[in-house]
């Protein structure tokens, strides 16, 4: 059976507080903090992008893999809505950097915030099909929200990486379910710098309907119920949505807590639920069941049920834990620095 052989995350150390963004645009910080449950978000510095985040996350996954030879990785898939190039793969750079070239398959995935979980889904499929020994799935983003848009308070950066295999598993993938419809809730047209969204329409009919659709189908399919799980992770465009959808499904705050990163991390887009999974694995015990459901506008959700193995105790400390990256060694930047880092200032380059 397919599952996770190694996992790792990487996050920028820079953060910007909701108040710092709000004061520039005359927005009401307390309402963002309360309404969206966002306190701050990660900010990638100019020398960090989806590729560099992916490489560092992949290296952490390799550290926890117990000696996977990168040359045996048969596929590298990177899900992101912020691939540095419009045309030129991110995956080959990562493959080169970790020493997986040249005998492998690479593809860059894009599906708004769901690209990361689809990379995981496809990687698992290769293992299930016995097409290769290992497949590396990476969820990474340095997402941009338009200045003054609500998304600016959440659009963040981070990466999670998972080496999928069939032996020596840290977590076995027991079941998956995907749920897709055509949903115009959020998009970015070719050559546009910032995405656009349909305001409140992105909630009920998009995020909630899709997340519920996928999660309920998977629970029904497996005959499992929320209380069977130790932990659950949902896509987190802000702090509030995953909390609310977990309640609607019957999960508790305790179940989502380890992977509920958005209040301090922001929305890492493709990285959101995958990074939440890394943080959850960090605190899991052998035998724990973990429910995970991503969401990507456009729209779709991939749901997974993971069963943690004994190996978690061996590998947990082989690489930096996600909460350490989230909580320690932080630098808070002002809006001017953030605007410079994110190239929101017109200048001659």
């Amino acid at each position, binding site marked *: 059976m397919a599952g996770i052989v190694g996992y790792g995350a990487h996050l920028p150390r820079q953060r910007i507080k909701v108040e710092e963004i709000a004061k520039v645009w005359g927005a009401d910080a307390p309402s963002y903090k309360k309404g969206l449950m966002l306190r701050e978000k990660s900010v990638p510095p100019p*020398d960090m992008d989806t590729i560099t985040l992916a490489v560092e996350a992949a290296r952490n996954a390799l550290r926890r893999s117990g000696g996977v030879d990168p040359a045996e990785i048969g596929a590298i898939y990177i899900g992101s809505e912020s691939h540095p190039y419009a045309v030129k793969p991110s995956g080959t750079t990562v493959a080169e*950097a970790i020493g997986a070239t040249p005998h492998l398959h690479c593809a860059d995935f894009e599906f708004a915030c769901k690209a990361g979980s689809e990379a995981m889904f496809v990687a698992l499929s290769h293992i299930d099909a016995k097409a290769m020994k290992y497949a590396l799935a990476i969820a990474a983003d340095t997402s941009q929200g338009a200045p003054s848009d609500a998304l600016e308070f959440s659009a963040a950066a981070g990466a999670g990486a998972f080496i999928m295999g069939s032996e020596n598993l840290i977590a076995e993938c027991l079941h998956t379910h995907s749920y897709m419809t055509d949903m115009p809730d959020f998009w970015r047209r070719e050559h546009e710098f910032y995405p656009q969204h349909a305001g409140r329409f992105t909630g009920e009919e998009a995020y909630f309907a899709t997340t519920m659709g996928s999660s309920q189908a998977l629970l029904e399919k497996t005959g499992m119920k929320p209380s069977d799980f130790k932990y659950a992770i949902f896509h987190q465009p802000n702090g509030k949505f995953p909390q609310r959808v977990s309640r609607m499904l019957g999960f508790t705050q305790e179940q989502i807590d380890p992977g509920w990163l958005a209040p301090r991390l922001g929305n890492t887009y493709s990285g959101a639920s995958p990074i939440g999974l890394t943080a959850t694995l960090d605190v899991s015990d052998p035998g724990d069941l973990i429910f995970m459901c991503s969401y990507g506008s456009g729209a779709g959700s991939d749901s997974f049920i993971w069963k943690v193995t004994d190996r978690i105790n061996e590998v947990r400390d082989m690489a930096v834990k996600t909460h350490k990256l989230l909580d*320690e060694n932080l630098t808070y930047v002002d809006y001017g620095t953030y605007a410079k880092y994110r190239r929101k200032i017109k200048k001659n380059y």
Partner: protein
Amino acid sequence: MAMFSSRSWREYPQRYRLEASKFKKSGKTYYPPRTIDPSNGDTEWETVRLPEEGKVITYTVIRVAPNMWGDKSPYGLAIVELTDGTRVTVQMTDVDVEQIKIGMEVRLEFRRIQTEGEAGVLSYAHKAVPKWY
């Protein structure tokens, strides 16, 4: 000044994977890789990967930066001695430049180094960040 992509591409093994050459006779490691050992003329070597941790043995803070690094200015530049004794010249990143000092323990991270204008190629390699875990 445009950096034609072949020039960057040729360096990927050493820039992306920190590959160096270790010579058979002297046991010395050189980065970037050399094909002749300056210590004894030996031409037999194997590829090794450099360790990713070390310490700053000297540094500066570039405060008047070329345009290409304008967004990062001021930035630290350091000569780092890695744990195997090999030295590399690297930028310091994710650090308050006023805190950089000789002896600082650092770790190498994969970063974007150069951006060829708005439309050109991106170049990646390693920068040093203070070791904090």
